[in-house]
């Protein structure tokens, strides 16, 4: 069996860390700590959002009931096997031939029915608690568009368009802040899943689904596309960054501004706009208005590239643009065949888009 | 085994295996049509572009009369072959075949109209998609039935059908089934769908 861990390339952990220090030096903006906790364990039993909490509540009940059933039935089975095993190989005597008993049949029909009724009621309660939640006027409205194989996030109320990393405010004791997601797909079926925030909801073309979050704790929460959607389904990762309401306001304000124009990277900018990148990518305030790929206006504000395939940073950005297919085989961004000089310039420009 | 002696010749009759087989066949066929009908109903009024059913569909009166009456004639044919009246059998069988053919001809005309004049093909819109597949699925069943009827007719010309009353019964069941399906298709496509 041939198993290689890639020695070089963006996957390698140590490489990432080196690269993060670089990044931290280059753009002091992103806190080192966050950059280093690139991954975390997303246990569905550690909810930080109301719907996820509801789910855990009912799950515990189900687990408990099933555990009891297992202990009883499994115990009976074990007991029977030991107690009624044939004691000696020579024993040819047939045991008493019993054909059944109606009372017993009725008993073990009725009891399970009761269990099922209990479970059904508990289930129904949680279903309506989650699905029938009204969408208050002051809730944050976000439109999520699934693409092969990345996420687009639109904030119609705020006029923000971004990708792969969803920023939402936390709900505090004083002010309750809900986020309602409108889920749409640009191509095939996907599924939006961030275990610690909520259960999944499919993202289906020709159909609008909704779900809501009420994060109670700031931090970064990871998720995945959970419906098989083609070659790179595995690398259609999600991250939700929960801010305090204040932080969120700042973030939103910063995102609303048009992409920075840094004179130092003028020719990089010119080159980028002259390339066919603009057919697929948007950079606000420029002629680049493509929508086939992620919006790059505030690219460097993201922790990762290519929906979580690699950590963000100049080095990775360069290797991505140099050959996207090497990093995310089969993804829909072609290798643009840029030479080193062009690469440096384009990367320099994109690197300036905070 | 003393017990055996007590029951040497109890009644022991089993149903005809062919009958069971045909019933099974008809059951699955029904399930198949059900799904296509569901798909049709589901897509009623969901076409993004025209032409729409109300613009282009006319009641296939003749086709319906032809097919439904063929149910009657096939029954007569079955009746005659049971009583060994081969002449009558050939007659009724022939009439059935003609009626079936007439039905297909009508369908052909209808489709020609739709394609040539109304420019409705299976690719035009959801109406086209569901219409041609449901009606087409039924028509294909009529065709199969027709072929079998023709074969029986040829055999009967050779005088080979005399002993085959039982077999013909199955064929006539199938034909009745195809008729019944048409009633459903007709209702769904030309009444509900319009």
């Amino acid at each position: 069996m041939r198993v290689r861990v890639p020695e070089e390339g963006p996957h390698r952990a140590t490489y990432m860390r080196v690269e993060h220090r670089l990044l931290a030096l280059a753009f002091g903006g992103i806190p080192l700590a966050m950059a280093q906790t690139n991954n975390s364990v997303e246990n569905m039993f550690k909810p930080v959002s109301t719907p996820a909490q509801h789910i855990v509540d009912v799950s515990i009940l189900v687990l408990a009931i099933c555990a009891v059933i297992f202990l009883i039935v499994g115990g009976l089975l074990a007991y029977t096997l030991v107690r009624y095993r044939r004691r000696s190989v020579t024993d040819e005597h047939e045991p008493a031939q019993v054909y059944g008993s109606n009372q017993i049949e009725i008993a073990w029909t009725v009891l399970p029915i009761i269990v099922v009724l209990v479970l059904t009621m508990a289930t129904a309660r949680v279903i309506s608690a989650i699905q029938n939640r009204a969408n208050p006027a002051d809730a944050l409205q976000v439109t999520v568009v699934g693409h092969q194989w990345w996420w687009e996030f639109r904030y119609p109320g705020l006029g923000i368009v971004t990708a792969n990393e969803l920023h939402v405010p936390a709900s505090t004791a004083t002010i309750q802040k809900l986020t309602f997601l409108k889920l749409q797909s640009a191509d095939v079926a996907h599924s939006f899943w961030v275990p610690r925030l909520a259960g999944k909801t499919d993202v289906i073309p020709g159909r609008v689904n909704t779900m809501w979050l009420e994060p109670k704790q700031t931090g970064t929460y990871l998720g995945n596309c959970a419906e098989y959607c083609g070659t790179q389904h595995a690398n259609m990762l999600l991250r939700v960054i929960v801010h305090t309401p204040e932080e969120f306001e700042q973030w939103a304000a910063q995102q609303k501004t048009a992409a920075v124009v840094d004179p130092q990277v003028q020719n990089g900018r010119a080159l980028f706009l002259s390339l066919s990148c603009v057919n697929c990518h948007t950079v606000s305030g420029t002629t680049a208005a493509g929508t086939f790929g992620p919006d790059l206006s505030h690219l460097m504000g993201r922790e990762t590239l290519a929906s979580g395939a690699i950590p963000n940073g100049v080095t990775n950005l360069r290797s991505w643009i140099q050959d996207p297919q090497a990093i995310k085989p089969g993804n829909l961004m072609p290798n643009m065949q840029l030479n080193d000089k062009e690469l440096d310039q384009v990367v320099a420009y994109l690197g300036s888009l905070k | 085994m003393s017990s055996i002696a007590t029951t040497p010749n109890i009644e022991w009759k089993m149903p005809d295996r062919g009958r069971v087989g045909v019933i099974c066949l008809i059951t699955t066929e029904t399930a198949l049509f059900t799904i296509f009908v569901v798909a049709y109903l589901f897509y009623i009024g969901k076409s993004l572009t025209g032409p729409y059913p109300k613009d282009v569909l006319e009641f296939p009166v003749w086709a319906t009369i032809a097919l439904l009456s063929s149910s009657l004639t096939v029954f007569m044919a079955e009746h005659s072959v049971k009583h060994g009246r081969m002449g009558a059998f050939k007659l009724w069988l022939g009439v059935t075949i003609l009626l079936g053919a007439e039905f297909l001809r009508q369908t052909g005309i209808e489709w020609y109209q739709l394609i040539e004049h109304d420019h409705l093909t299976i690719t035009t819109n959801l109406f086209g998609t569901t219409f041609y597949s449901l009606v087409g699925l039924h028509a294909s069943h009529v065709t199969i039935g027709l072929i079998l009827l023709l074969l029986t007719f040829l055999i009967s010309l050779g005088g080979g059908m005399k002993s085959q009353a039982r077999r013909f019964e199955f064929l006539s069941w199938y034909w009745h089934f195809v008729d019944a399906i048409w009633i459903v298709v007709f209702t769904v496509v030309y009444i509900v769908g319009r």
Partner: protein
Amino acid sequence: MATADYPLEQPHRATKEFSLPSVLHEWIVTVDHKKLGIMYIVASLFFFVVAGLMAAVMRAQLAIPNNTLVPPEVFNRLFTMHGTSMVFLVGMPFLAGLANYLVPLMIGARDMAFPRLNAFGFWIFLFGGCLLYFSYIAGEGLAGHGSAPDVGWFAYSPLTERAFSRGSSTDYWTLSILVAGIGSLASAINVIATVFTMRAKGMTLLRMPLFVWLLLVVSGMILIVMPPLSAAQIMLLLDRYLGAHFFDTQAGGSAVLWQHFFWIFGHPEVYVLILPGFACASEIIPVFSRKPMFGRAAMIGATVSIAFLSLGVWAHHMFAVGMSARSNMFFAASTMMVGVPTGIKIFNWLGTMYGGKIRFDTPMLWCIGFLFQFLIAGLTGVMLAVAPFDWQLTDSYFVVAHFHYVLLGGLLFTYFGAIYYWFPKATGRMLSEKLGKWHFWLLVIGFHLTFDTLHFPGLLGMPRRIYTYPTGRGWDTLNLVASIGVVFQAAAILCFVWNIVQALRKGKEAGDDPWDAWTLEWATTSPPPEYNFVTIPEIRSSRPLWDRKHPEDPDWKYE
């Protein structure tokens, strides 16, 4: 004794001289239900090994994070082919094989109702199977895209539409399954006709062995649930070849409709797969507990109600597609309800063993493993049935663990039990108990290493159908352990293959009735003659051979 209208001397085959071509020819042209049954089962085991090896490759790829053993597109083909093969080319033919071989023997018939249709069914199934694998060499298609299908075993639209799946790989999936489905229908019709029209004198419906009852129900289900899949597949073909729009979301087609059609087939299908397993358990457990089946009538009733209930639960595979709260509640409730009749079955098997004298021969071991594992599998099923819980679990590795528990820990275990139980009847030779126990324990260890473990990555957010995963999300160790389990499973399968080979070469003579059993198949020779029975004993109860062995207190006194 009602003597048969057949000569009493042994089958002429015994005297015929042996030559490979003549034997091959004999097997290819045969319409004998026993030969066809064996062919079905051999084909099924062959595809099992192939699909199993694919699984082994998948586990190797997933053993460590960021692994590059296989590229994404290859991995996607692997799980599609693995899943499709296991369901349609392993599960279905095995049940057809059992039905073909055993039903006529158990009801004292001399063949199936439609022997030629039967042979047709087998060959068309085999053709379908080969067609599916042919895609590996021919799937390139005109556009030069894809090889084997890579859309997953339930091929959700619109991923299967031309726009997203070019080339012809998806068409190979569609056509081969369509064709194999015709085979299943053929054998289903055959079983039903045989059971209703060819039972031996005195074999009333209520005296039929439970095995026959369950296969009758399964066949009935196949008649009703196969067509929805075929219909949907025909629509898909129309979309891909004639430009229809059934599932074309650009033109207003519905992606969800495909899901409904598929699962209207797909869920009952899983019971179609497991009921034959129940059928085997219902024959083996009584014999090795030395007691009649506890609550026969209840077992029959439970089976029938499972069949009916299973038609109304399909959308529990779709809790996350955004159905109304009301539909989610309905399907959650109906799904849990299925647990009740299934429970009745488990309890009745328990009741059969309770108070018996349990013999731990290999066939019984498999059934005991089945009981424990299916209990757990069913309970994880109930967790999935709780819609909100499912919003977290669906399409995660928890689901993968659930259905391997039912299919491998449940279905496959009973099937291995069935092989150890009826192999002597079919070949006249015993399988080695020693190798059998190795086979059993290795598979138990491997199975639990792999699939107990796989529940947890699901709870930690690991989706299914991913060709690789990043490190640091708590999935690494669990996946490694799961992959190690496969080594044991593979070893177990090798023991099994070796056991068969050995038994065929020099297994010890079985005799007519090695297990001291009670159903009709043990009343004839091993292997049975072409016409099955020289004389068919009069049937007066559900255990004719018990009556014969214990004339002092026969069953018919009580039934």
